[in-house]
């Protein structure tokens, strides 16, 4: 396996762990974003960091988006005093539609498989204009377009 194969494999595994922690049946694009923010040593990680987006900040933004979207339907999360449910440690959440789309967009953003790097995966996630990720970033006051430019620059310079 090449370096990028190992990286993508690690990100998908970490994304699945994030989905499992969430109790989500699917691994979604926002789970992959949490995984990207946990893997140091990439241009993607650096760009997220300079936008103030470490794993914890992304988690907070996602939680805020969840509460915000529920409130549009008149539902308050604070009204539910739920015990945390137990999880099946052996369950592997499958890749959901948003995660698959992000990976497809990452491959399209690179010039061929040999060019594919972590930054392209971040671009693939950030390209979505609709859905949980752009909504969470907007609520957190993050300029998604500027962040994409911050990833494209090191990618063009050949950074990993």
């Amino acid at each position, binding site marked *: 396996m090449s370096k990028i194969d190992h990286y993508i494999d690690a990100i998908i595994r970490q994304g699945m762990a994030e989905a499992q922690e969430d*109790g*989500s*049946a699917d691994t979604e694009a926002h789970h992959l974003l949490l995984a990207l923010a946990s893997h140091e040593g990439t241009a993607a990680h650096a760009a997220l960091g300079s936008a103030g987006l470490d794993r914890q900040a992304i988690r907070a933004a996602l939680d805020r*988006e*969840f509460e915000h*979207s*529920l409130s*549009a*339907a008149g*539902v308050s*999360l604070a009204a*539910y005093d*739920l*015990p*945390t*449910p*137990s*999880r*099946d*440690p*052996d*369950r592997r959440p499958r890749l959901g539609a948003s995660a698959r789309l992000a990976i497809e967009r990452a491959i399209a953003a690179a010039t061929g498989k040999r060019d594919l790097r972590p930054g392209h995966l971040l671009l693939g996630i950030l390209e979505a204009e*609709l*859905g*949980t990720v752009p*909504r969470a970033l907007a609520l957190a006051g993050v300029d998604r377009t500027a962040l994409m430019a911050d990833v494209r620059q090191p990618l063009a310079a050949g950074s990993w």
Partner: protein
Amino acid sequence: MHEPDDALAAVVALRRLADRLEDAAVEQAMRAGWSWPEVAEALGVTRQAVHKKHAKRLIAAGVALRRRQ
């Protein structure tokens, strides 16, 4: 309701909340000694469906389950 994107995002969020609520409520019932058929009837689904969806994680968590009837 507001703009289409808010309404659609509310659908996604409500589904997530419903899934969480189901996991928590089924576990609470089974820990309280409910049977699979009772939980299934309360949820309005078959007991095969509720068993398939929740049995593994509850067994892994060490919840004492009543036998399926």
